[in-house]
């Protein structure tokens, strides 16, 4: 199969505000990310207790993915995510926990999140996805990469849909921009359109 691909839905989470397809749907003013994330999780009525064990990057990714996947048919949906800071936010926390030789108690629960692609595992487990998933690191948001890689996945029948995501979390600064690509939709999946939605 070759042809055009389309963005069928998109969302963003930043500054304690959630937008779905351009419309603000949730906001918690003056709250730390942990509290904001908990309230959003409750609001979405998702039942997945392991959410509370995740690191911040996984929570952010999980919530953004949930917005687009929770009511859909997600069979054969690939995951294509990227960011600039990898898992550095959690890497630093883990390093802090092992920096004092007299108080050396590395936490296994923190250590398991010292890879950025763990967030893809969380999404895959929740939605029972046995599909292709990849996490890349770039200096900045890279719409050309998302357009090209998703097109390859769809054109070679590796996936029926691709959930693309830019998920960044470092030092309490965060941003998620996640969208779903398939052969159906209204917004053509081009670098220019991706960039426009990312900036909107």
């Amino acid at each position, binding site marked *: 199969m070759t042809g055009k691909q389309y963005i069928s839905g998109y969302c963003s989470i930043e500054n304690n505000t959630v937008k779905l397809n351009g419309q603000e749907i949730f906001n918690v003013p003056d709250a730390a990310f942990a509290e904001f994330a908990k309230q959003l999780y409750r609001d979405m009525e998702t039942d997945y*207790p392991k959410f*509370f064990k995740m690191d911040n990057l996984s929570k952010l990714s999980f919530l953004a993915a949930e917005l687009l996947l929770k009511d859909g048919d997600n069979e054969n949906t690939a995951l294509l995510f990227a960011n600039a800071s990898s898992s550095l936010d959690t890497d630093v926390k883990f390093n802090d926990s092992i920096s004092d030789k007299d108080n050396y*108690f590395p936490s296994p629960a923190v250590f398991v999140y010292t890879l950025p692609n763990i967030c893809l595992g969380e999404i895959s487990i929740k939605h029972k996805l046995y599909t292709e998933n990849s996490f890349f690191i770039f200096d900045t948001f890279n719409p050309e990469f998302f357009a090209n890689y998703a097109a390859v996945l769809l054109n070679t029948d590796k996936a029926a849909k691709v959930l693309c995501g830019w998920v960044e979390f470092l030092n309490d600064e965060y941003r998620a921009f996640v969208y779903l690509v398939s052969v159906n939709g209204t917004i053509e999946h081009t670098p220019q359109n991706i960039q426009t939605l990312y900036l909107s």
Partner: protein
Amino acid sequence: MEALKQELKEKIITILNLEDIQPADINDNDALFGDGLGLDSIDALELIVMLDKDYGIKLSDPKEGRAIFQSIETMAAYITENRTK
């Protein structure tokens, strides 16, 4: 022993991020893994770290944890017997 059991329930909830569970929800003989609290293998490793950090107990063989972490009752008994702090 009762104070230690209550302490363990509070620690487990905090350390393992068991949202929506209160100490009173955990019975002394409830299974901590499997059908009980539903803890997983990473949780087991966290409990091993907790034994070392808070009670000075080093488990040389992680398989020992299977019997020790059966329930709050078995944990409290093992800690009472082996604690160094």
